């Protein structure tokens, strides 16, 4: 069976999700354990968003591998929802540290915001494009 060619937007989405996931594990990481071994609040927000970002990277890779409009549309919808969830987790759902000069406020939250918004918008565009394609019978 001849597969459809890989779409540019799928590759961009995958790269964004991959950078997001790698970023959460490296440059967007929050502070480590305190001297007494306990963690600050932001650690739980970081863990939750990291899990979501890895899931998003895997889903966007599946979208490229399968190259199926219906599956792609479904994955794109879930990417939009996951990106929104990632956006609201740090600060709204899981509280961050008290001082806004700390890494969680200064680096992690803005990073999640930028990646979350871009991925949500691109995924929403992808949903529309795939839906239009499906309507045309592509």
């Amino acid at each position, binding site marked *: 069976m001849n597969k459809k060619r890989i779409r540019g937007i799928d590759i961009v989405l995958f790269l964004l999700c991959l950078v997001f996931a790698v970023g959460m594990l490296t440059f967007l990481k929050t*502070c480590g354990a*305190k*001297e007494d071994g306990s963690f*600050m*609040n932001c650690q739980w927000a970081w863990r939750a968003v990291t899990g979501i970002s890895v899931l998003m990277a895997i889903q966007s890779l599946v979208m490229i591998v399968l190259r199926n409009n219906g599956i792609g549309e479904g994955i794109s919808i879930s990417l939009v929802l996951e990106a929104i969830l990632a956006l609201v987790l740090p600060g709204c759902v899981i*509280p*961050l*540290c*008290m*001082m*806004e*000069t*700390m890494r969680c*406020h*200064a*680096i992690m*939250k*803005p*990073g999640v*915001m*930028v990646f979350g*918004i*871009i991925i949500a918008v691109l995924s929403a565009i992808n949903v529309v494009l795939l839906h239009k394609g499906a309507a045309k019978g592509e």
Partner: protein
Amino acid sequence: MKFRKLPFRNLTKKPGRTAMLTVLVMILSFAMFAGAATIFSLRNGMKSLEARLGADVIVVPVSAKSKVNLDEMLLQGTVGYFYMDSDVLEKVREIDGVEKASAQTFLATLRADCCSIPVQVIGIDPDTDFTVQPWIAQSYGKPLETYDLIVGSKVGTEIGSTLRIYQQDCQVVGRLDSTGTGMDTAVYTTMDTMHLLLEAAQGLGHDLKITGDPDEVISAVYIKVKDDSSAVSVNNYINVHIRKVESVQTKNMLTTVSDGMAGASSAMTILIGGIWVLTFLLIIAAFCMIIRERRLEFAVLRMLGASRRMLSGMIFTETAAICVLGSVLGILLACAVVFPFGGLIEEKLGLPFLQPGAGMCILLAAGTFLGVLLTGTVASMWTANRLSHVDASKILREGN
């Protein structure tokens, strides 16, 4: 197909070429907007610092300099504490030329409830304070009661919540507006509450190096000098006549910060200028090369009846479309970097940083958009002018 649709068809049918030119314009737009927003934020921070500092001279115990970097502590909010006898305040008030003098007492918490970093607590006398009280009055109209706290804009606690400091429950009753200075990370309270907190800290075994009664200590005296007097002479008088204290002129502190800000600002202006010139030349070069490549296409269009004016119009439309797309993308990218990561930029620069309001940001974005559009249009004008003098029959005969 109508001729006016041709420029957009040209752009969409050559996505690589369009993307390359759009990225060029985007870089220019990003550099202009991000640079301008950063420079404005630094200037705002400096203005805010000058307005908020208020005092001409600050008196601290002579031991303060060995404990903390005074500039960093007073201007950037680095946490620290030191104490001297409160009679220094009375001695300062008696000096000729002193218009106002008010004491502040500092205390660093060892650990706030949620974070492993200390928070600076500053005790003020609301009746005499002229540095913080005017700003507190703007945020919280009522007098501060015992255990009431006003927090800086970067202390992320809700108004009405309780902050536990040295096992004392304090009520957060207000929040100061953002200043871009060290004031944003501090917590303010009255002298009465501060003395209770000092006692609590000592009761828990923390050695604050206080000799004597905690109710009789202060950390700094802020002085406003009379208009007809000199801050230098008041500063020198204190250093000579009052023992065990050191007097510092805030003007000298501000000069250090403003020198740093001027340096950062100049470097950024030079960088933006360099990027602007480079991008301008690159856009001209790119258009020249592209138009040279497309000479045959233009010659065919001329033979089909397109006037020179129509061809120039087509190039203008293509350029304008690329400039609009590139500048919008560049501004959006700059917004995604400068505004969310403002805190990080502030930390890395180590200078007062206060982002401009929405109105100023819209003006900056509009200025960048028009600047980029003008740059792109001027760059293409030259090539369009050359094109209008192309001999179509000669190009078609020669085949290139």
